[in-house]
C-alpha cells in the first residue's frame, strides 16, 4: 500500500469492513475485517480494479450509484435482502454472511483526492436472531391456538356428557316413579290381604287379586321394555338384516292380540297386501308392531276400531296403526318419543304406561333405516306411521 494511504491503518482496528476506492475504481485500501470475512488478503487486492475483482459488481446496478458517489453524490445503501453479496463472504458452516453495505463519498484534503468508502456491516446474527424470534413467536401462537382448541373441545364434550347424564337422570326418575306406583299398590293390597285373610270371603279376595294380576302383567311388560331399551343403549342388541315378509309379522301380532281386543270389544282389522318383502331386523320390527298395536288397544274405547295397514311407498314399506281412541293434543304429541319428558297417561281402561315402548319403537325403527311419526287429534284417534326399507328384490 502506498505510503500516503497509511493513515487508513486506523480502520484495521474496527469491527466494520472498510474498502476504499479512488475515482478510477481502484481499490486503495482493504481493511482487516474484510480480510477475515472474505479470505482475501489486502496485498492481493489493493491496486486492483473493483469491477474486475468482483465481476458481479460490473453492472449498471452498481456502477451508476458508485460513480455518483465518487462524483460527490449522496451515500448509497445496498441491503442484504436485495443484494446477496456485495463482497462474497461465508460463515464457517458455508452459509452466506449477510452483509449490509454503504458506499459514501470521502474527500481527503491532505491528498486532494476524492474517494468512495465502502463500509460493510455484518447483519447475519441479527437477522438469524430475528428469524428465530419470529419462529418461536409463531410456535407459541400455534401452541396457544392448539390449547384453546383443546379446551374448547373439552368444554364441548363436558357439556355433552352433562346433558346425557341429565337425560338419564330424568329418565330414571320417571321409571322409578312409574314402578313405585304399581309396586306400592301391590304392597298395600298384599298387606291388607295378609292381615285380614280370615275376614275376607273368596269372592272378595278374588276382587283384590284381579287388579294385582293386571298390574303385575303391566309391570312385567314395563320391565321387559326397560331391559330391551337398556340392551339397545349398550349396543348389545345385534341387528340381523334379512329379507322377510312384513305381512307375516303383522298377521302374527294381530292374531296374538285378537283376544285382548275382543275382551275390550275393540275391532282389530287389517288392510294389507299378501306380500311385502322388506330388508330389516325381524325381531325389532316385530317389537315395534306389537308395541304399536298394544298402545292402540290401550287408548281405544270399547266399540272402537283399530286398523293395521301396509303398502309400498318409494323405497319403503309404510305401516300404519290407526285407532279411533282418545287421540292426543299437541303437547302430548311433542313429548311422545322423548326420553326426558314425563308422559304417563292412563289408557281407556285405566291402564298405566310409561311410554317407554314408544321410545324403543323409535330407536328400533331408526336403527332399521326407517322413520316413525304420528298424526293425531284429541278425541278423534291417532295414526302411527313407520317405514321399513324394502327388499332389493322387487315386490310383485
Amino acid at each position, binding site marked *: 500500500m502506498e505510503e500516503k494511504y497509511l493513515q487508513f491503518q486506523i480502520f484495521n482496528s474496527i469491527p466494520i469492513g472498510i474498502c476504499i476506492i479512488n475515482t478510477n475504481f481502484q481499490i486503495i485500501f482493504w481493511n482487516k475485517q474484510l480480510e477475515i470475512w472474505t479470505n482475501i488478503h489486502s496485498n492481493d487486492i489493493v491496486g486492483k480494479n473493483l469491477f474486475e475483482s468482483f465481476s458481479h459488481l460490473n453492472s*449498471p*446496478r452498481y456502477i451508476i450509484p458508485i460513480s*455518483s458517489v465518487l462524483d*460527490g*453524490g*449522496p*451515500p*448509497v*445503501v*445496498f*441491503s*442484504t*435482502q*436485495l443484494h446477496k453479496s456485495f463482497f462474497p463472504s461465508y460463515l464457517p458452516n458455508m452459509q452466506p454472511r449477510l452483509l*449490509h453495505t*454503504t458506499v*459514501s*463519498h470521502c*474527500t481527503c484534503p491532505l491528498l486532494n483526492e476524492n474517494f468512495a468508502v465502502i463500509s460493510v456491516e455484518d*447483519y447475519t446474527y*441479527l*437477522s438469524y436472531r*430475528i*428469524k428465530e424470534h*419470529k419462529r418461536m413467536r409463531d410456535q407459541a401462537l400455534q401452541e396457544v391456538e392448539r390449547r384453546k382448541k383443546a379446551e374448547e373441545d373439552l368444554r364441548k364434550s363436558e357439556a355433552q356428557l352433562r346433558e346425557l347424564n341429565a337425560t338419564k337422570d330424568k329418565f330414571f326418575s320417571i321409571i322409578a316413579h312409574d314402578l313405585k306406583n304399581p309396586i306400592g299398590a301391590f304392597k298395600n293390597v298384599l298387606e291388607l290381604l295378609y292381615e285380614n285373610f280370615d275376614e275376607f270371603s273368596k269372592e272378595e279376595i278374588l276382587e283384590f287379586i284381579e287388579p294385582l294380576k293386571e298390574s303385575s302383567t303391566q309391570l312385567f311388560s314395563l320391565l321387559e321394555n326397560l331391559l330391551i331399551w337398556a340392551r339397545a343403549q349398550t349396543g348389545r342388541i345385534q341387528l340381523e338384516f334379512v329379507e322377510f315378509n312384513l305381512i307375516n309379522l303383522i298377521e302374527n301380532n294381530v292374531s296374538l292380540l285378537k283376544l285382548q281386543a275382543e275382551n275390550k270389544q275393540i275391532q282389530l282389522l287389517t288392510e294389507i297386501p299378501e306380500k311385502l318383502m322388506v330388508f330389516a331386523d325381524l325381531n325389532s320390527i316385530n317389537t315395534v308392531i306389537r308395541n304399536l298395536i298394544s298402545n292402540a288397544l290401550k287408548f281405544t274405547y270399547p266399540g272402537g276400531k283399530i286398523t293395521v295397514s301396509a303398502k309400498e311407498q318409494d323405497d319403503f314399506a309404510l305401516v300404519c296403526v290407526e285407532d279411533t281412541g282418545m287421540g292426543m293434543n299437541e303437547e302430548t304429541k311433542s313429548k311422545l318419543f322423548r326420553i326426558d319428558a314425563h308422559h304417563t297417561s292412563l289408557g281407556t281402561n285405566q291402564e298405566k304406561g310409561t311410554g317407554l315402548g314408544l321410545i324403543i319403537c323409535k330407536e328400533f325403527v331408526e336403527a332399521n333405516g326407517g322413520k316413525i311419526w304420528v298424526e293425531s287429534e284429541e278425541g278423534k284417534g291417532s295414526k302411527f306411521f313407520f317405514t321399513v326399507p324394502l327388499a332389493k328384490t322387487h315386490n310383485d
Partner: protein
Amino acid sequence: MEITSEHIDVIQEMINIGVGQAANLLNSLSGKHVKLSVPIVQIITPEQLLDFFKNHSVLDNLSSVTLTFSGPLSGSSKLIFSTESASKLVMAFTDQTQDELDFDEIQAETLSEIGNIVLNSLVGSLANLLNINLNYSIPLYLTGTIDQILSADLSFKDDGIILLARTHFSIESLAIEGDFILFIDLKSVPDFVKSLDKFIQEGGFFTK
C-alpha cells in the same frame, strides 16, 4: 430574503425531476412500471409540519430515511412512509406476498435501501440542478411515531424553512405514498434563494 411563488415553481420542477429519476431507478430495479403523480410542494413552519402529519397520515408506525447535508446549504432531508406503504414497496421488490411479509428489521433494512434510492434522487437532483456540492451524512433509518422520527434528528431545528412535498406513486396497482421533507437551516436560506434566483435568471436548467 423571501421565497416567492416563482421559487416554489422552480423547486417543484426540481422535485419532479428527482421523482422521475427515482421512478426510473425503481423501475429498473423492480422491473415494473412506476406510475407517477404530481408532487405538491409547500413551504411550512415546524408547527405546521406536525399538524400536517396529524391531519394527513397515520401517526405511528412510520418508516423514515434521513439524509443530512452541509456545505453551501446545510440542512436535512427525510422521506417518510407509513408501514403499509413501506411493506408495499418491499413487496414490489422482493415478490413476497402480504402474508409472508412481516415487517421487521430484515424488511426494514430492505426499505432503507429503497427509501435511500428515492431520497437520493430527490436531494441529488436538487443539488445537481442548483449546481452545488454538498457533503452528506450516512443515511439514517428510523421507525416509530412521527414525534419520535422528527425529534430523533436534531437537524430539524426551529429556525429554518421546511419544504414539504408529498410524493405519490404506484407500482402495479400498489399505491405507495411517501412524504418528502427538506429542512434548510436558516443560515443557508439566503444562499438557497440566491441559487434559485440564479437558476431562474439563466433561464432554467444547467446542462451537465
